[in-house]
C-alpha cells in the first residue's frame, strides 16, 4: 500500500521501524499546519522554519518512545510547544512599527497597505504577550481547540488555561488601544 493511503497511526508504526519514506509522508501531511502554528508563535518566517524543522527532527528521534496514547499530531504539537516556549522571540521596537514601509501607490493600493499595517500591529502585540499566554491564545484562536485540549497540550489545568486566556485578551486590548485610538484598527 502506498504511503499516501496510510493513516497516521500506520505511518508511525512504519516510521518506528526506521522507514524514512513513511516519516516523510507524516512530515508532508503536518508541515503546513505546524509551520502556521509556529509562525504565529514567533512571527518570523526564518525562525518558524527553523523551529518547525527542529520539531520534526526531534519527533523522529523520539519516535520510539511514542506509544500512541494521543494522536501523532497532538504529540508533535507538544514537541513544538516545548521548543517555542524555550525560544527567545525577536520583538521589534515600537518605533520600528511606525516606520513600516509606506505604501507605494503605484504598486500597493491603500487598502492593502492598511491591511498590512494592521497585521503588523497585531503580530507585534502578540509578541509582547508572555509565551504561555500567547501559546494558549494561538491554540484557541487559530487552532480552535477546546480548553480541555489546550490544557492537555500545555500540561496545565483547564482553570489555568482560562486564566491565561483572560489575561492574554486583557493585555492585548491594552496593547492595541493606542492603535485603535489612532484609527489604525
Amino acid at each position, binding site marked *: 500500500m*502506498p*504511503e*499516501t493511503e496510510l493513516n497516521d497511526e500506520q505511518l508511525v508504526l512504519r516510521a518506528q*521501524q*526506521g522507514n*524514512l*519514506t513513511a*516519516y*516523510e*509522508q507524516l*512530515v*508532508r501531511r503536518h*508541515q*503546513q499546519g505546524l*509551520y*502556521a502554528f509556529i*509562525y*504565529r508563535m514567533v512571527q518570523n*518566517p526564518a525562525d518558524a*522554519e527553523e523551529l*518547525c*524543522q527542529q520539531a*520534526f*527532527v526531534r519527533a*523522529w*528521534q523520539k519516535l520510539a518512545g511514542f506509544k500512541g496514547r494521543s494522536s501523532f499530531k497532538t504529540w508533535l504539537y507538544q514537541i513544538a510547544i516545548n521548543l517555542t516556549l524555550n525560544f527567545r522571540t525577536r520583538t521589534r521596537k515600537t518605533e520600528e512599527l511606525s516606520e513600516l514601509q509606506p505604501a507605494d501607490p503605484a504598486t500597493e493600493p491603500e487598502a492593502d497597505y492598511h491591511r498590512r499595517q*494592521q*497585521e503588523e500591529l*497585531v*503580530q507585534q502585540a*502578540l509578541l509582547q504577550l508572555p509565551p504561555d499566554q500567547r501559546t494558549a*491564545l494561538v491554540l*484557541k*484562536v*487559530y487552532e480552535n481547540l*477546546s*480548553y480541555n485540549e489546550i490544557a492537555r497540550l500545555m500540561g496545565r489545568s483547564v482553570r489555568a488555561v*482560562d486564566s491565561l*486566556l*483572560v489575561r492574554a*485578551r486583557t493585555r*492585548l*486590548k491594552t496593547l*492595541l488601544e493606542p492603535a485603535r485610538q489612532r484609527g489604525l*484598527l
Partner: protein
Amino acid sequence: MKTMKCSKVLKLLSRHLDRELSGPEQEAVNRHLAECAGCRQEYELLQSEHRLLRSVTVPEIPPYFTARTLARIGALKPASLLPKLLWQTAVSLLVLAGIGLGIILGSTLATGSSTSPELAALNSEPTIEELFAPGNGGR
C-alpha cells in the same frame, strides 16, 4: 431571578466567547448582556479583537521544507536513530566505500596527483535517504 453582577459577567466573557460556559451560566450571561450596555460593549470589543486576530495571514511554508527537514534527519548519527539491521547495512556500505577509497588512493598515489574528484565524492558521506530510500516512492 436576579441578574448576574457586572464584575462576575466580565470575568466570564472570555469563556462565553469560546463557548466554554455551562448551559445555565451561558443563559445568565446572555440575559445580562441583553440588559447591560456596558458589558455588551466589552463583549463586542472582545469579539472584534478575536476577528482581528483571525484576519492575520500566515505565509506559505518555504519550498523545499520537506527536503531540508529530511536532509537534517539524514545527517543525524545513524546509530542513534536506526534499527540494528539498517545500521549494519550502513556499516557494510561504508566498508565497501572504504575499499573503493583504498583502490583510488592507490591509483592516485601511482599517478602522483594528490587530489581527485572521485576521492572527494567518496569522502562525502551519503545521506540516510540516499542509503535507504526504497526506490524514492511515494511522490
